[in-house]
């Protein structure tokens, strides 16, 4: 059976499963549609939360980012898991006790203000829409690579599947489908990792393999990797090269951003009891940790495998040739991925071999490419000269250790972060069914997160905007219909954005986590832990947090992500060494300060609001999540 048929069979089988669950778990009431009737077991809810949380970014991108970033990128591992501690202790149990459907609804009730609720909806939409774009483009990439359909067709199929179970089933359908998707994605992630860990270290548990000895050299895997990458001129894998300040703030931003993501928070409205909300956060992290403890192993092993593939006889012997890529079966993946544009091979020195190393001139290469695109002869010559000079300098330095380096004219292989996980089984020459499984896993990760986000978007529109502000008298049946229609519209918008990505798909992490950290997390936390924060304080805090964070990101990434309107860059940030991706934590701090100062200067919240805060602090008397 060829690879394509295998991919089709495995992916097709998972889709049939998702459809089956969708038909079985249709939602009949708004309580089922918004919060799955509040009757999901904490372990099942934990699995669903895991699938909801682990997006295309976790499944496809994260290990690749770590593979090329090493220790510096540990922020993703700590940040995207540590947020669950904050959720379990600071938010989830109290919001479950509050017992309503949406995050903006809590903000509106606690701060007794329609404006506060509206700002909550606005922040939620910014976060969820930027986030969903990344999922839809992930769906497109996975489909076009593995099922040989165009990107657009892939997106339509993906949208149709999400439509079926999200619109029909609401939160109930989504939750039970996510349980199935979690199982698919965790199997798909760990099986190739186990194979590769066995090949490289002989240890069947990848998380332990990372700290084991490598089979061929007998020395620790990480030591071998450090040696190889530094010999090729890259920065050390295990040493820190980012500033401590930026790494600290980036980790903090991802942590409180995670705790402030609306589509994650609503997961804790679906469990029966307050005590279940606490343990459910723990179960969610158990299922997330299964992937997150494996990810750093996948990262290091994929990097090592990649280098070993291109230098099969060691770094000082000849690397693989352009001809090898054309003819050898085990290098077929290089050609396959080159057609997607995510991997590039160019023989700069014309020796027919592929030299992969750090020529120290990546920025100059980009400049040269830009100059060639612009077509100005003088500019091209100048950029070429600068590039050649830098490359020659590096080559001379490297030639001291490796005589062949004297002839190198620049790095000839560029690999996109995103293909490390998807191409990993091919790089390691694993059997075809493993490759098919990874395709199904990538799709499960992207689809499950997309569904959770669409749910958050549609409930914000139907429940917070339509029922909350425009038409409070709407019947339950009418609201259910409105929720389904807004879900369908949200899917159409997400598909359109996936087809025409606004060019900032890669920047969505900074925006989504920055805004969640600077607006929703502080508002919720202060609403629970302080009785003194009033409507004026919360509104001022959220607005200032939102504006400061978005402006800082725009100053570095360009206004509305138009690249040439940026005044600063992340390599030379505006304030100290704080990159725009790390600014959410600063935005949150500003939110806290403003909210406290404004609240102190204005009247305390009314008595019924103070009573509300009292009541959400104790578990006793919680019912099923409801609208009134």
């Amino acid at each position, binding site marked *: 059976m060829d690879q394509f048929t295998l991919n089709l069979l495995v992916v097709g089988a998972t889709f049939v499963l998702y459809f089956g669950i969708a038909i079985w778990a249709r939602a009949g009431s708004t309580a089922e549609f918004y919060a799955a009737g509040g009757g999901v077991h904490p372990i099942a809810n934990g699995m669903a939360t895991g699938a909801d949380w682990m997006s295309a970014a976790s499944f496809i991108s994260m290990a690749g980012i770590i593979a090329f970033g090493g*220790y510096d990128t*540990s922020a993703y*591992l*700590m940040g995207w*898991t*540590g947020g*669950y*501690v904050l959720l*379990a*202790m*600071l938010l989830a*149990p109290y919001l479950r006790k509050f017992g309503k459907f949406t995050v903006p609804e809590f903000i509106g009730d606690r701060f007794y203000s329609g404006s506060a609720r509206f700002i909550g909806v606005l922040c939620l939409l910014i976060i969820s829409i930027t986030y969903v774009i990344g999922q839809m483009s992930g769906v497109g990439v996975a489909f076009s690579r593995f099922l040989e359909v165009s990107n657009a067709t892939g997106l339509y199929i993906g949208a149709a599947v999400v439509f079926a179970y999200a619109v029909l089933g609401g939160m109930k359908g989504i939750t039970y489908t996510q349980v199935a998707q979690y199982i698919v994605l965790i199997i798909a992630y760990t099986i190739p990792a186990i194979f590769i860990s066995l090949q490289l270290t002989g240890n069947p548990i990848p*998380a332990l393999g*990372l*700290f*084991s000895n490598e089979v061929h050299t007998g*020395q*620790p*895997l*990480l*030591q*071998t990797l*450090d040696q190889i990458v530094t010999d090729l001129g890259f920065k050390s894998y*295990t040493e*820190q090269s980012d500033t*401590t300040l930026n*790494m*600290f703030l980036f*980790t*903090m931003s991802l942590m409180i951003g995670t705790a402030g993501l609306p589509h994650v928070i609503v997961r804790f409205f679906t469990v029966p*009891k*307050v*005590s279940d909300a*606490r*343990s459910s*956060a*723990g179960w969610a*992290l*158990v299922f997330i*940790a299964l992937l*997150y*403890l494996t990810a*750093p192993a996948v990262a290091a092993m994929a990097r090592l495998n990649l280098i070993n593939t291109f230098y099969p006889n060691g770094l000082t012997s000849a690397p693989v040739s352009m001809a090898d890529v054309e003819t050898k079966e085990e290098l077929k993946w290089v050609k396959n991925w080159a057609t997607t544009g995510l991997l590039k091979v160019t023989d700069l020195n014309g020796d027919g071999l592929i030299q992969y190393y750090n020529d120290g001139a990546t920025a100059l290469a980009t400049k040269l490419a830009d100059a060639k695109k612009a077509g100005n002869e003088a500019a091209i010559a100048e950029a070429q000269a600068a590039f050649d000079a830098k490359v020659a300098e590096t080559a001379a330095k490297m030639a001291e250790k490796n005589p062949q380096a004297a002839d190198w004219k620049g790095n000839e292989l560029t690999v996109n972060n995103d293909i490390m996980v998807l191409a990993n089984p091919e790089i390691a020459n694993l059997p075809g069914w493993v490759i098919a499984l990874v395709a199904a896993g990538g799709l499960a990760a992207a689809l499950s997160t997309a569904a959770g986000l669409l749910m958050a978007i549609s409930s914000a529109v139907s429940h917070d905007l339509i029922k909350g502000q425009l038409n409070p008298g709407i019947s339950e049946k009418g609201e259910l219909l409105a929720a389904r229609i807004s879900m369908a519209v949200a899917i159409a918008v997400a598909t359109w954005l996936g087809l025409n990505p606004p060019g900032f798909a890669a920047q969505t992490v900074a925006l989504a986590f920055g805004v969640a950290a600077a607006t929703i997390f502080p508002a919720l936390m202060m609403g629970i832990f302080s009785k003194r924060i009033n409507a004026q304080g919360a509104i001022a805090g959220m607005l200032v947090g939102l504006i400061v964070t978005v402006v800082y990101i725009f100053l570095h990434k360009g206004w509305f992500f138009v690249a040439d309107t940026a005044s600063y860059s992340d390599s030379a940030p505006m304030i100290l060494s704080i990159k725009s991706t790390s600014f959410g934590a600063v935005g949150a701090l500003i939110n806290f300060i403003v909210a406290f100062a404004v609240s102190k200067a204005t009247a305390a919240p009314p008595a019924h609001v103070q009573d509300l805060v*009292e009541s959400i*602090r*104790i*578990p*006793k*008397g*919680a019912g099923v999540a409801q609208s009134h």
Partner: protein
Amino acid sequence: MADKSSSNAYWAANIRTIMIYLVVWFVCSFGFGILLRPMLAGIKIGGTDLGFWFAQQGSILVFLVLIFAYAARMNKLDRQYGVEE
């Protein structure tokens, strides 16, 4: 409904618990993984140092223990102060 002084005592006990757990949360991630890594550089593990392990795996394991320990502790406090569901 529990009376007011008992609810206040329950909330104070909860805050104390959260404070202690957050200190552990901070020390094992931001501390051992980032700020204190140079101090742990002497402790070698699998070709690198303990700080690297905390940053990539150890912190996650600590987070897991923290959440379940907090859930268990709060269940006990809920019963002790008579505020359980």
